[in-house]
């Protein structure tokens, strides 16, 4: 067995010492950590760039939509105002109280023994109309009070067919001092004043629930106003 002598042991020891240099090893480890951190930063930067692109795209989309939406909102508000006015106007026209049929109704009920001296009427309210009619006249015949009462009853019956809450009563019924010629005979007279109260139309609708309002809006928009009346 041959004997080997390492004449370079000092060189080898120095080389080994350099290899085990803690600062060097630390720097390697630190370099690795820095590289890892750099990679993580790059990933994070990529994620940020993606989100920023998305934001930029959405901002551009919103910038394009916003003026159009504002104009649409303005149009919608304007249309809703127009629709509200239209609905009120049409409702006002359709819910009017018509006096001609009332006058006709009274005229057909007055018998030949009665002369109407004054007829006055007034209507109040919107939606549900409270109407008051006063008929002043002179009745004649064998029993002028009965004639006046028959007129009152016939007005009550006739108006009850057309209107609600009909209340017909005498404000006064007095024997007249004068006699009138009726069918060639002198007849006694009675002066009377009949007060007729009744209701027409419908109660105005109370504020609808938000859901109901949408439905009503749609219905009102679809309904053509009937202006032929």
């Amino acid at each position, binding site marked *: 067995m041959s004997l080997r002598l390492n004449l370079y042991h000092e060189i080898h020891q120095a080389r080994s010492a350099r290899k*085990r240099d803690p600062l060097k090893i*630390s720097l390697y480890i630190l370099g690795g950590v820095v590289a890892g951190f750099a990679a993580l930063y790059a990933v994070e930067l990529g994620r940020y760039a993606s989100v920023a692109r998305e*934001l930029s795209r959405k901002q551009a989309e*919103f910038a394009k*939509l916003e003026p159009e939406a504002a104009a649409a909102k303005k149009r919608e508000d304007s249309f809703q105002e127009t629709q509200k006015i239209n609905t009120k*106007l049409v409702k006002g026209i359709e819910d009017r109280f018509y006096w001609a049929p009332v006058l006709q109704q009274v005229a057909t009920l007055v018998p030949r023994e009665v002369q109407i001296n004054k007829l*006055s*009427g007034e*209507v109040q309210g919107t939606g549900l109309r409270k109407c008051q009619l006063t008929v002043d006249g002179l009745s004649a015949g064998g029993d002028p009070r009965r004639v006046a009462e028959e007129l009152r009853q016939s007005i009550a019956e006739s108006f009850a067919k057309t209107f609600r809450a009909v209340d017909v009563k005498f404000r006064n019924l007095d024997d007249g001092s004068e006699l009138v010629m009726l069918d060639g005979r002198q007849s006694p007279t009675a002066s009377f004043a009949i007060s007729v109260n009744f209701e027409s139309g419908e109660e105005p609708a109370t504020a609808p629930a938000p859901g109901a309002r949408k439905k009503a809006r749609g219905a009102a*928009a679809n309904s053509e106003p009937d202006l032929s009346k």
Partner: protein
Amino acid sequence: MKNLNKDHIQKIALGSLMAIGVVYGYFDFLLGPLRAKTRSTAASVTALDPEISKANAQMLRAKAIAKEAPPVEASIATINGMIPEGAPVAWFPVVINDLFKRAGFEKSTTKLTTEAADKELAGYRRITWAIELPKVDCLAFGAAVAELENQEPLVEIQSVAIETLREDPEAQRVLLTVNNIVK
């Protein structure tokens, strides 16, 4: 550890301090602000989503309204067409006089009593008129009232007073109070 001399220990301590400094600097000055920026940008994106949805919904509503609008606008135009141009006091008495003249009543007087803006109808006014017909025949007057109510949809009679004339029991004097909607 046995081989570590003083120099090695100093280098290890220095390296550790450097590592701590690098980690702190990295998280505090680089990654931290970047992540905060990403979160803030993502929050802005999330905040924009409902705004965009709202704007899109508004556009859809506008399209729906564009379909609903023509009949309403036509109706308003029809109603506005019933209101002549100019001051109502210049044309309304003429309309009423003509109407009653056609019914055979030569004389009628129409006077403006009150005028007020209608709170519920922006842009419209409600005028109250007093109309007097000094001598009418009751039945013909009824027909004239029917014609007035049919031909003037914006007019509503508020009160009627028909009184027999003492000097002519066959004739009556009439007072009407009417409301009219004008622009």
